[in-house]
């Protein structure tokens, strides 16, 4: 499965369009992480635990999007976009969406 956020894959031709596919996940940080992040907050700087958490979430969202795309018979997803939203205290939604296509 090829993933790109370009409108097409350079050097390849799109033979079929299979429509929008998307994947998302909602995750919350566990208490230990939240506590450490709370301490870190007085000093500021990178919150590594959160960076990791959101990276894992993004990988999961991509995986779900890819699963949807391959179920539709696609071999690539083009024009991929990401969105993150903070839906509740301590929980974040990460979403990936794009257009499933068949490359020749």
């Amino acid at each position, binding site marked *: 499965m090829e*993933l*790109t*956020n370009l409108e097409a*894959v*350079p050097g390849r031709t799109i033979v079929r369009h299979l429509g929008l596919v998307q994947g998302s996940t909602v995750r919350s940080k566990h208490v230990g992480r939240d506590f450490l*992040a709370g301490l870190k907050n007085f000093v*500021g700087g990178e919150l590594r635990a959160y960076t990791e958490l959101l990276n894992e979430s993004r990988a999961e969202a991509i995986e779900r999007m890819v699963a949807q795309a391959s179920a539709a018979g696609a071999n690539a997803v083009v024009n*991929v976009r990401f969105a*993150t939203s903070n839906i509740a205290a301590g929980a974040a939604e990460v979403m990936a969406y794009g257009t499933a296509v068949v490359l020749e």
Partner: protein
Amino acid sequence: MELLVQLGIFAVLLLVGLVFGRASEKRHFREIRRREAELRDVLVFNERRPPHDREFRQATLVVGSVVIAEDYFKRIAAGLRGFFGGRVTVYESLMDRGRREAVLRMKEEARRLGATMVFNVRFETSSLAVDGGAQTPMFSAEFIAYGTALVPR
């Protein structure tokens, strides 16, 4: 007495934020400049179409992300600034840091793939409220930079 203790805690937190927060920001900026110089040859474009006269072996999505939080000093300084209005420099540097770090991580991923260019780069920023144990949440934000890494043939 209680007031005095609270004032003391406030002063300590402010000082910790000012000293350690500023030191870590300075360190981070030094690190960013060093890595930017190192990764200068990975070209980044927000142009949507890659050049037609080049051949590419591979096009892969690359993402860089980072979560950065404010320190106590920044928070108080921003609060004061909010009272008078104007440029909130303490947050400007925070956003700048986060975004540059995200781009660097994206470039590092591109470099690992052997790419020389990243096209159609997009930014995404979202603020995450983190409860710092205090009554009001502290501000932290996630920065993402993503694009398509192109590996030359």
